């Protein structure tokens, strides 16, 4: 299917705008924090929003190949969040260094 036109295109464009607006809100949260977990949650959501953006954009421009991109992002975004979670955990572990760990 080729590029959308007419009403569907209008709708899809509106979706795109909504997604980027939501992206903006998320980034505001990311910048405002106030704590690291807030930012990490925001970044995690930014990845979802990026996935959504690509899906809508794929439809809008008639290029389903973009689906692959979103798949890759979904695959790795999780890793980023895991890394942050590890970091946060590390903070509390560092605090409790003396106590033996449960595993």
């Amino acid at each position, binding site marked *: 299917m080729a590029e959308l036109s007419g009403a569907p295109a209008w709708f899809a464009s509106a979706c795109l705008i909504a997604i980027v607006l939501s992206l903006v809100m998320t980034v505001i949260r990311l910048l405002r924090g106030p704590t690291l977990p807030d930012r990490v949650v925001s970044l995690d959501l930014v990845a979802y929003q990026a996935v959504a953006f690509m899906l809508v954009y794929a439809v809008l421009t008639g290029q389903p*190949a973009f689906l*692959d*991109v979103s*798949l*890759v992002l979904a*695959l*790795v975004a999780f*890793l980023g969040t*895991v890394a942050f979670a*590890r970091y946060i*955990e*590390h903070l509390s*572990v560092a605090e409790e260094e003396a106590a033996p760990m449960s*595993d």
Partner: protein
Amino acid sequence: MPLTLLFSVFLLLRGHNETGGGFIGGLVAGISFALYAIAYGTASSREALRATPQQLMAVGLGIAVLSGVLPLFGGGTLLEGLWVKWGALKVGTPVLFDVGVYLLVIGLALVIVYELEEHNPGLFPQSAASE
């Protein structure tokens, strides 16, 4: 994990025709091994791999170079595309080249994960991030 690996091979092979390629495929594969290492420790991940990341990288570069050199034997030039069509199957040196890239990138991803982890085990606190 097997799924992501499969996906990575898929990315590798499709690269020439659609989006993807050895680099992206290799990274995805590397990531899945890395996940495995994070979840179950580098020792078992190394065991699963059966080759050191360094060997993977060396072999990857070797394959890439080999794919470049192969056409020379037929009087061609370095890195010339050489395709063997076998029925509908098309295998060419560019694909072989991409396979080299794929292996090398896996090796890179893993060497980072393994070495960082083994150098300072605190970096990846072991936990059951169960999948």
